[in-house]
């Protein structure tokens, strides 16, 4: 029993301890925050940099349940606008997967795209932001374009590498059984690489959100990132912090959904998990 400490490979903490351990750091962060907020407010009751939980609850109430001065529920319109940009970009990643797949199976595609994509993947998208706004204007297109320039090549290269990993024997086997070249790529290779590629897309959610916020901070009239940058002008941390938490929750939700989907749809790919 005593040997089963934190550095024991066979440690099996009791049920209650498992729960405590999982949430300990959350509680610690919240507690530390509350203490900081209290100290700062004791010194300056109008402090805006570290708002108390009560102030943030007020901020959430104003953002999520009351119409603002334009008569809109701010959090709702911002969330819808940002999610729309996010999902459009996500849908446009489907061609990225297909391209990667083709590069992995068809030599012509590999020769044409591989070097270019590898280079393109390394371009720091944020650095060319002004160029994007000049080419694509200030509307929705430029924001989606930024996200795609950021993650499209990554997803393509991932799909390419996974497709390359599929044993060549399988392709030959497919051909001898009378499958067409297209059937082999779409029905033999694609289903095998999809779970891994979906997983890569999931891991790239963070990058997508980062690019989304960057785009929204530069030119926008609505959006989660837009709001954070605008209310910064009057130090409204009581709005910014809940917005950040809300964005993280949305991201965690999307992440969990994809993981759940992979587990249900491709149980063979997650057999050891």
């Amino acid at each position, binding site marked *: 029993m005593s040997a089963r400490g934190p550095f024991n490979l066979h440690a099996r903490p009791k049920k209650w301890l498992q729960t405590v351990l999982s949430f300990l750091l959350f509680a610690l962060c919240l507690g530390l925050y509350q203490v900081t907020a209290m100290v700062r407010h004791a010194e*300056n*009751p*109008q*402090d*805006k*940099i570290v708002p108390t939980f009560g102030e943030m609850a*007020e*901020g959430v109430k*104003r953002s999520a349940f009351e119409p603002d*001065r334009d008569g809109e529920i701010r959090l709702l319109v911002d969330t819808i606008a940002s999610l729309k940009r996010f999902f459009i970009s996500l849908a446009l990643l489907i061609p990225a997967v297909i391209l990667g797949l083709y590069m992995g199976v068809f030599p012509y595609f590999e020769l044409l795209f591989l070097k270019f994509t590898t280079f393109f993947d390394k371009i720091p998208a944020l650095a060319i*932001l*002004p160029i994007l*706004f*000049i080419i694509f*204007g*200030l509307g929705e297109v430029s924001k989606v374009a930024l996200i795609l320039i950021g993650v499209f090549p990554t997803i393509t290269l991932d799909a390419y590498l996974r497709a390359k990993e599929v044993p060549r024997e399988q392709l030959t086997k497919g051909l001898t059984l009378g499958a067409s070249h297209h059937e082999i790529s779409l029905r033999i290779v694609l289903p095998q690489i999809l779970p891994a590629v979906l997983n890569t897309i999931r891991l790239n959610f963070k990058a997508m959100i980062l690019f989304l916020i960057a785009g929204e*901070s*530069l*030119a*926008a*009239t609505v959006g989660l990132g*837009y709001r954070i*940058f*605008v209310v*910064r*002008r*009057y*130090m*409204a941390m009581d*709005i910014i912090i809940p917005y950040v938490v809300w964005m993280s929750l949305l991201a965690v939700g999307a992440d969990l959904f994809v993981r759940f989907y992979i587990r249900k749809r491709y149980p063979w790919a997650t057999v050891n998990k």
Partner: protein
Amino acid sequence: MKKRTILIALMLCVIFVLPAFGAPRFKVAWSIYAGWMPWDYAKDSGILKKWADKYQIEIELIRMDYIPSVEAYVARQVDACVMTNMECLDMPAASGIDSSAIIVGDYSNGNDALLVRDNLQVRDLKGKEVSLVELSVSHYLLARSLELNGMKEKDVKVLNTSDADIGPVFLANPGQKAVITWNPMVMQIEQNPGISKRFTSADIPEEILDLMIVNTDVLRKNPELGKALTGAWYEVMSVMTQKGPAADKALKVMADSAECSLAEYKAQLKTTAMYYTPAEALAFIEGSSIKQKMDFVRQFCFDHGLLGENASSVDIIGVQYPDGSIQGDVKNVKFRFDHRFMEMAADGKL
């Protein structure tokens, strides 16, 4: 070997430990703007150090981006910071940081401008998009131009655009008909064909003030900081007003630091109404018009939720003027026009 170790240890002591026993140190943040470039020259020329030495303090001048500098000031990472009267009201004062304007350096006299395509009038902007940095002085300029033309902010669509890209982005998108920004972007944009200036801060003189703001508590405990800053500032002002090579040399340093040519910097100074002498600044802040001008600014801040979204009235923050009168809440004075240091400068007592 041993000798060398001791020597190094001694040197480290001198570098790290001695300053702790030395003169009190203060951090002052500044950002690039025509009216604030003299601070860079004050540092570069040694004038700031000379005045700091005179009052036996040390002043570290830190160049930052504008909004981060004000944020650093609100977070008390710096003791003083240059900012406009509007940001002073809606960022530190609204966050409970008691702030004193010890130097009224200039007012924007055309540095902020509304630029349009197709020779549009302000009235023609109805229903059109206007690019600007939302809730900044540009937004204030929009509100004032609409107000003076009998329109409301709802009549136009505000497109929040980062100041980093506002120039090239506006120029590249002919569909955009109006933009509001400040110098040097105004100069870059207006040089292009088909673009005209429609409304500028020169149409609302002495409303957008550029100030040196010092944390009032720090200033109370260390009036030397106010004296040294004010002394250095007006020495630079006197250099700038001397005609001829000495002034040009100073202006060249400022232009280089602002990454523009001397001619461009001089052009920017034309739209910056500098109060070159303390007497001019005092005449303004001790006069009666300042209260009315500040009222426009605080009303804008209140209307846009900048004093706190749940602020009950425009009067929740008190603004104190040199005559001791207070605009707003007497019990919550957080923004003070402190004339004492400029007065000392005017009287030659620094």
